[in-house]
């Protein structure tokens, strides 16, 4: 039993190493009721196995002053290098998450509860991705923690999903519309740059 658990943990760690590592291109602040907010960005990074390059975007719609409907997407390619990406050797991954975002404590803390669908290597994966956003340093930076839990159960039931934690810093340029993001899932480090529109 211990040996099986060990195998499952190793498999889980390895398989989770490349999954859903895109940045959260937003702060904890919610949109005003009826308002829209958009962000797009590019990101990249690596773990011990592979490099990842991608684009990501977020769309928020204010349902109330404290609740948004938040949707994000990302497209990424995993390969040994950017050169191999352009040669077509990469593995593509598409993520789409959508769900409510509740902002509390004077818009400084937010919880997103989206459902996520991921498509990669001719397979769809369904998951839920609860995400905690915390604005710090006078709202110039946002810490985030996202847990991606796959719905499906199978042989490696011990694998319960992967955790991504990161940090957004809003550059004091263009009305704080440009943000830098750094995030990690514990086995890789990723960074990106985005713009809020």
């Amino acid at each position, binding site marked *: 039993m211990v040996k099986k658990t060990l195998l499952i943990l190793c498999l889980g760690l390895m*398989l989770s190493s490349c999954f859903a590592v895109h940045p959260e291109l937003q702060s904890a602040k919610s949109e005003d009721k009826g308002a829209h907010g958009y962000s797009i960005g590019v990101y990249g990074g690596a773990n011990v*196995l592979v490099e990842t390059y991608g684009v990501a975007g977020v769309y928020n719609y204010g349902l109330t002053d404290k609740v948004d409907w938040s949707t994000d997407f990302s497209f990424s390619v995993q390969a040994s290098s950017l050169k191999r990406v352009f040669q077509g050797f990469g593995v593509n991954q598409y993520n789409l998450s959508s769900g409510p975002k509740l902002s509390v404590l004077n818009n400084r803390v937010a919880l997103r509860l989206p459902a996520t669908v991921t498509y990669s290597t001719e397979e769809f994966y369904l998951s839920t991705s609860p995400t905690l956003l915390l604005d710090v340093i006078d709202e110039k930076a946002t810490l985030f923690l996202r847990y991606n839990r796959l719905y499906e159960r199978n042989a490696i039931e011990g694998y319960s999903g992967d955790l991504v934690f990161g940090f957004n810093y809003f550059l004091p340029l263009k009305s704080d519309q440009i943000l830098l993001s750094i995030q990690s899932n514990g086995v890789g480090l990723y960074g990106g740059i985005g713009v809020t529109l």
Partner: protein
Amino acid sequence: MCKNFLVLILIAGGLMGCDRTENWTAIDFLSGTWEGQEITNYIKIQSYPGALTPHSTDHLLNQIDTVNRTSTIDSAGVVIDKSVFVLLDETHLSLSGTDQTINWAFDTDPLPAGLEPIFDSLRVLFSGEQTFDIQLLNKKECILYFDTIVPVYYAGNVVNVELRHTQYWQK
């Protein structure tokens, strides 16, 4: 006279520059020494996202002898593997691996030691006969690919692991 000579030179140059591979078949393209570029192994378990494990093979040379139907892998002047192959048709190739094949075809270094049962199963797979799809084959490039399900036995349990293996060679 000078003009004729110039014309002859141009014609000769033109003929030398012609692509003489027009009527080549896969066996003609395969023949020769190929330089390793990269091998990618994509491992996944059903319903879970997989892991891509690419590794550079630029230290390898693959001498394809189409007369004796052998593939000899050389690393820095040392022969590390030799296998026989059968060209099944223009897009499929069957290679009979050896116990050494996995050592250059799969990079286990970055993976946790706990995955040893997978490697044991892969060792058996690579040392057997394997049919590759010839995804790309021309005068300069060769891409070979196969995918298969590998049952991994561990502590009385079986986990089906899918392997997608791609080899990229250049001349």
